[in-house]
């Protein structure tokens, strides 16, 4: 508990006495990133607003640095906690630097005039988030990616112990997403501050978070390290994925597979079949594929999209059992697509399967090597 900076105990949050989330118990240590994941409307933003002190908790407690949040004075709290929320910031005739300087509010005097020290903190914060170059640009005329970094600089200006971010990368393209989260990760490591943020980008959440809080079904379903959360099909359950699939181990999201018995057999492996699987899915043709080791690059996609997969665990030797199974499927299908014709010594059986396919002259087959 020594390093715990913010925690909640049996917290219930919501609007107008209607709880959105109940019994949330979690904690985040100094220098840790905690990520909230969960379906739309599950209450991630509501939880963040409550932790920020902008929404009164309905029950339970929030403790910042060991003290109940309601016992904090506004100004004192503003010096310990900063936010980057999804609410649009309204500015008029304000440069990026003016917006960042707004973060000094809890430190300036009655009229909000910046001291030299304030000014140097403002320029330091802008350097840290790489926005010094645009300091004199109008805040309304910069890109989404720049805007998020300016808001982060503003939050840093408050010299907080913890920053709350609500979907900070949702409107950014992949380059800015990676840039923003890398920046955040570095700042956390350098300064030892804590971060609580919500993310919709699951694969990024899995990588950036020290711990993950899963919000669903009106409560914090799980609170654990990413490895534990992203396993055993839990994510599909959390988001109630009904059409398509999400493979947590590999971070692979696939659309709904074509229904019905397989009409095409795809001979694939070593990543040669993925494009073909996707093409068949787009055309709505159910297919079977094999013979794949479960560690094969093709396997996660095959598992998500194929009607049948002939597979075996890695480490086992391919044998006649898989061959017979595959031959049966080849016989049942109208067509065969061959994605590769060279096989390593550990998958000679696939070579035998190819020979079998080529021998069946009554059947059209397509050789579809890379490209």
């Amino acid at each position, binding site marked *: 508990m020594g390093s715990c900076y913010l925690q909640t105990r049996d917290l219930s949050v919501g609007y107008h006495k209607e709880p959105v989330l109940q019994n949330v118990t979690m904690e985040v240590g100094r220098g840790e990133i905690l990520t909230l994941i969960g379906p739309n409307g599950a209450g991630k933003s509501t939880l963040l607003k409550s932790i*920020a*002190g*902008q929404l009164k908790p309905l029950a339970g407690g929030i403790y910042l640095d060991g003290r109940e949040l309601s016992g904090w004075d*506004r*100004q004192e*709290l*503003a*010096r310990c*906690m*900063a*936010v980057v*929320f999804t*609410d*649009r*910031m*309204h*500015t*008029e*005739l*304000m440069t990026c*630097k*003016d*917006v960042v300087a*707004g*973060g000094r*509010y*809890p430190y*300036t005097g*009655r*009229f*909000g*005039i910046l001291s030299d020290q304030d*000014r140097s903190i403002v*320029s330091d914060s802008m350097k840290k988030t*790489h*926005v010094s*170059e*645009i*300091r*004199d*640009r109008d805040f309304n005329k910069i*890109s989404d*990616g*720049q805007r998020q970094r300016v808001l982060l600089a503003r939050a840093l200006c*408050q010299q907080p112990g913890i920053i709350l971010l609500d979907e900070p990368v949702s409107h950014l393209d992949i380059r800015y997403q990676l*840039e923003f989260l890398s*920046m955040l990760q570095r700042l956390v490591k350098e300064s030892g501050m804590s971060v609580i943020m919500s993310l919709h980008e699951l694969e990024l959440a899995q990588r950036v978070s020290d711990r993950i809080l899963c919000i669903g079904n009106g409560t914090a379903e799980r609170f654990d390290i990413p490895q534990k959360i992203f396993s055993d099909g839990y994510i599909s359950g959390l988001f109630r994925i009904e059409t398509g699939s999400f493979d947590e181990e590999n971070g692979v999201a696939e659309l709904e597979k074509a229904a019905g018995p397989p009409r095409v057999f795809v001979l694939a492996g070593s990543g040669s079949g993925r494009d073909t699987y996707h093409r068949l899915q787009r055309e709505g043709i159910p297919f079977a594929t094999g013979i794949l080791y479960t560690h094969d690059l093709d396997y996660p996609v095959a598992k998500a999209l194929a009607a049948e997969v002939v597979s075996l665990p890695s480490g086992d030797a391919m044998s006649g059992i898989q061959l017979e199974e595959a031959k049966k499927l080849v016989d049942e299908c109208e067509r065969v697509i061959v994605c590769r014709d060279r096989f390593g010594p550990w998958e000679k059986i696939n070579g035998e399967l190819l020979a079998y396919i080529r021998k069946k002259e009554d059947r059209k087959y397509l050789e579809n090597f890379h490209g």
Partner: protein
Amino acid sequence: MQDRKDKTAPVNKGGKNSDNRITRDIICFVILGVLVLALLVCNLGLGSVKIPVRAVLGSIGIGSAEVSDTARGILWQIRMPRALAAFLLGGALGLAGYLLQTFFHNPIAGPFVLGISSGAKLAVALVMVFFLGGGIRVSSWGMILAALAGSLFVMGFVLVMSRHVSNMAMLIVSGVMIGYICSAITDLVVTFAQDADIVNLHNWSKGSFSGITWENVAVMAAVTVVSLAWAVCMAKPVGAYLMGEVYAASVGVSVRRLRVLLVLLSSILAACITAFAGPVSFVGIAVPHLVKKLFGTAEPLVMIPACFMGGSVFCLFCDLLARTLFAPTELSISTVTAVFGAPVVIVIMLNRRKERG
């Protein structure tokens, strides 16, 4: 990690840039100050009786020009209180407009369009008719209190409306409607009040700076100066509030308290204006925008005093025209302010559309 696009942006040294800004602020304040003084002198000198500038200055103790008793009487009893009223109430209007625009995050808010002035007018008319009918004179403070009650009543209505309509155009329309209702009732009250004293109400209910006494000036000076000082002290939280309530709260602003103060302060200002000059249109909307354009900043610490001075300039100028254009016939002040203020509102709306693309 550096953004390549960013590098094309002009790079200024931070210090130099903020120096430029302060210089511009000072220049603009000096311009406004000179305009206020020049217009005050014009207002004192011009009218159906022309009084030369030297005589005007002489009568207030600057220089040693001879001043006739008639001129002295006109200056001290009529023009000076009137000019000071235009100065103080104009400032109050500019400031009230700025505070309301801040509160509603709405660029075309103002005491007149939201119906607050009309509410104050109705309350004052009712009180005056009631007391004058009973032969009792109403003091300046009594008028302000009545006006405050009226403006708070309408403000309450507008606040309830603002909770139900998220569209800011609808908010303005509802404000204009309640303004019309209040004006209609006022007209009814004034029309059916036969008393000769009350006939004067007719001028007032259209908006005019005429008939202001020194006692009125003292009271309005007290109210507006205190309100201005109060507003200046609120500049810091107002600046944070302008960016959005969530962000204001996150840096430690008590948003609820600030909102109450904004409502209260703008209602007091609107009440003060209406109690003495009746409803004056468009100053509250137009001045903050003109001032913002002039200064090139929306920083409240600058905007608050600047809107006050801008309102003063606007009203002194408009009152000068109202008195002199068709002298000896006097125009109502709103006639003149509308001519100059309404185009500003139209430009604002066109610009907003452009910004939204």
